[in-house]
C-alpha cells in the first residue's frame, strides 16, 4: 500500500513540478507573481477537450496544437498586459495578472458553462499497468513522464543554449543585460510564452484524467505558488524537487492523517522548510 501511495505522490509531484516550472520562470525573470498561470492550465485543458470532442483528435496528439496556442497566449499576456505594468509597484503588477485571471476564468464560464467535462475515450483512458498489488493508470503515467521530459527540456534550454543564457542574464540584472546587447523586452516576452507553453503541456496531459471546468486551474496554481517559493524563485531544479516534496507529502500525509488535511499539510511543509531555508531550497 505504501508503495502505491509513494508512486501516486511522485506522479502528482512531477505534474506539480511542471506547473511550477512555468510559474518560476516568469517569477524569477520578471519578478512578477503571475496569477494567470492557473488559467493557462484551464484554457489548455479546454483546448484539448474541444479538439477531442469536436475533431476527435486524441489529447496526446493534440499536444503540439495546445503548445502553440498557449505559447501565443503567454506572449500576448506579456505584450498586452504585463509589459505595461513591469515598472509599476510590485503589487499593482500582481493585480493586473489577477484581474486577467478573473477575465479568463469567467470568460470560460460564460462560453462553456461551469459544468465539468471529461475526456472519456482517449487512447490512454481506462488502461493501467499492474505490478503485484500496485496499479498505475496510463493517463497518470503519461502525464508524469511527459512532465519530467518537459521540465528537463526547459532546464536544458535555459542552462545550455544561448537564448537560455540571455534569459538567465536578464533575470540576474536587467540593465546590465541590456548593456550587453540583450533585447530584454524580447526575453520577457519569450519567458512568458515558454511559461504559457509549459502550462499548456501540463493542462493537455491533465485533461486525460482530470475534469475540465472553469476553475480547474485554481488549486494547481495555488500549489504552484507554494512550490515555487519552496524551491526558490526562478529555479527550475527547485520547482522539480519542490513539486516532488509537495506531491509526496500530500499523498503520504493525506493517507495517514485523512484526505481533508492534505492541503493543510502542503502549506505546513512550506512553513517548516522555509524556516530552515528562508530563500527556498535552491535560492540564494
Amino acid at each position, binding site marked *: 500500500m505504501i508503495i502505491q501511495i509513494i508512486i501516486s505522490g511522485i506522479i502528482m509531484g512531477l505534474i506539480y513540478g511542471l506547473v511550477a516550472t512555468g510559474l518560476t520562470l516568469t517569477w524569477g525573470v520578471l519578478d512578477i507573481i503571475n496569477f494567470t498561470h492557473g488559467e493557462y492550465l484551464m484554457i489548455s485543458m479546454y483546448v484539448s477537450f474541444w479538439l477531442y470532442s469536436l475533431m476527435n483528435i486524441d489529447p496526446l496528439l493534440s499536444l503540439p496544437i495546445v503548445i502553440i496556442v498557449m505559447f501565443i497566449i503567454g506572449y500576448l499576456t506579456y505584450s498586452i498586459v504585463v509589459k505595461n505594468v513591469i515598472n509599476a509597484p510590485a*503589487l499593482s503588477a500582481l493585480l493586473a495578472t489577477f484581474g486577467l485571471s478573473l477575465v479568463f476564468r469567467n470568460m470560460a464560464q460564460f462560453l462553456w458553462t461551469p459544468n465539468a467535462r471529461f475526456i472519456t475515450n482517449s487512447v490512454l483512458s481506462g488502461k493501467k499497468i499492474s505490478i503485484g498489488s500496485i496499479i498505475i493508470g496510463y493517463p497518470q503515467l503519461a502525464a508524469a513522464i511527459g512532465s519530467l521530459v518537459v521540465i528537463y527540456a526547459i532546464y536544458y534550454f535555459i542552462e545550455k543554449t544561448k537564448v537560455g543564457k540571455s534569459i538567465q542574464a536578464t533575470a540576474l540584472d536587467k540593465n546590465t543585460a541590456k548593456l550587453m546587447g540583450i533585447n530584454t523586452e524580447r526575453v520577457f516576452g519569450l519567458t512568458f510564452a515558454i511559461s504559457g507553453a509549459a502550462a499548456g503541456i501540463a493542462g493537455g496531459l491533465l485533461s486525460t484524467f482530470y475534469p475540465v471546468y472553469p476553475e480547474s486551474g485554481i488549486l494547481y496554481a495555488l500549489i504552484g505558488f507554494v512550490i515555487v517559493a519552496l524551491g526558490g524563485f526562478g529555479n527550475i531544479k527547485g520547482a522539480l524537487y519542490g513539486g516532488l516534496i509537495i506531491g509526496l507529502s500530500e499523498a503520504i500525509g493525506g493517507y495517514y492523517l485523512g484526505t481533508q488535511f492534505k492541503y493543510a499539510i502542503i502549506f505546513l511543509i512550506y512553513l517548516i522548510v522555509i524556516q530552515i531555508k528562508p530563500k527556498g531550497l535552491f535560492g540564494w
Partner: protein
Amino acid sequence: MEKSITNNKKMIGVVLLIILALPIIVQDNNFRHIMILFVLYAALGEAWNIITGYAGQTSFGHAAFFGIGAYTSTVLLWKFDIIPWIGMLIGGIIAVVVAIIVSYPAFKLTGHYFAIATLAIGEIMLQLFVSWEYVEGATGIMLPIKENGYKYMQFHPMNKLSYYYIVFGLFVITVITAYIVGNSKMGFYLKAIKENPDAAQSIGINVTRYKLYAMMVSAFLTAIVGSFYAQYVTYIDPFMVFPLALSMQIVLITVIGGLGNIYGPILGAAILIPLSQYTRIIFGGTGKGLDLIIFGALVVIVTIFQPNGLVGLFENLFKKIKKKEAINDGKLHDVS
C-alpha cells in the same frame, strides 16, 4: 512644510461625514446594503494597509484574522450566550495572539517568501475550520436569534441603518488608528523599515518588534470587522470567512485605491464595491460570470493606467487647485 491632503484632519473629517450621511439621506435598502459593504471593505483595507502599505510586508492571508473574528463572536454567542460586543473584543485579542504566533517565524522571511507564507497560513486556517467539528466544520453556523437591539447587534426585520451605524463606527476606529499609526513615531519607523530594513536596523530601530506591532494592530482591526460581518449576515461557514478570495479582495481594494495612503482603501472600496454589486445586479443574473469579466477587465485597465492607485489622480487635482489658489492670492507667480 507643506501639508499634504493625507494628513489633513479637516479633510478626513469631511470625507467621513459625507460617508455617514449618505445612507441616512438615501432611504433605499439596496443602497444601504452596498454602503455597509463599502464601509466594511474600506475598514478591512485600512487595517491591511497598516502592515502592507505602511510597513511593506505583503500579507495574502488577512482572511485568517477576519475569520477568527467572525467565528469567535459567533461561537461565544451560540454556545455561551455572550453578547457580540464582548465576543468582538475577544475575537480581536485571539487574532492578536495568532498574529504574534505566526509572525514570529514569518518575519524571518522577506518579500515574496513572506507573502506566500501568509497565504499558506490563511489556507491552513481554512482547512482547520473545515474539519473542526466543534464549530460545525464545513456545515457552518447559523447565528441564534436573540432580542432586538444594539445589545445583541440584531435588528429584525432587517434594519440596515442600525447595522450601518455599527460598521461605520468600526470603520472610523480603523481610520483613526491608521491616521495615528501613520503620523506617529511608529509610522516613521515603519516607513523606514519599508524603504530599507537593513538601514532601519542600523540606526537602532527594532525592525522585528515594529513589524510585529503593525501586524498586531492590523489583525485586531480585521478581526473586529469580521465579528460584525458574522452578525450582519447571520450565517457563516469557513468558505465565506477564510477564503483566499477575501484576502485578495482586500489587497485589490487597497492597491487600486492607493497603497500606504489613508484615502486609498476608502477610494478603492468606493469604486470597486458598488461596481461589483451593480454589475452583479445587472449582468450577474444570467449566472454566466459576465459581471466578473467586466470587473476583471477594469482591474487590468486601472492597474495599467494608474499603477500607483487612484489616489494619485485626486492628489494631482488637489495640488492643481492649491496652486491656482496660491496664484490668485498672489503668493506664487505663474511660471508655466
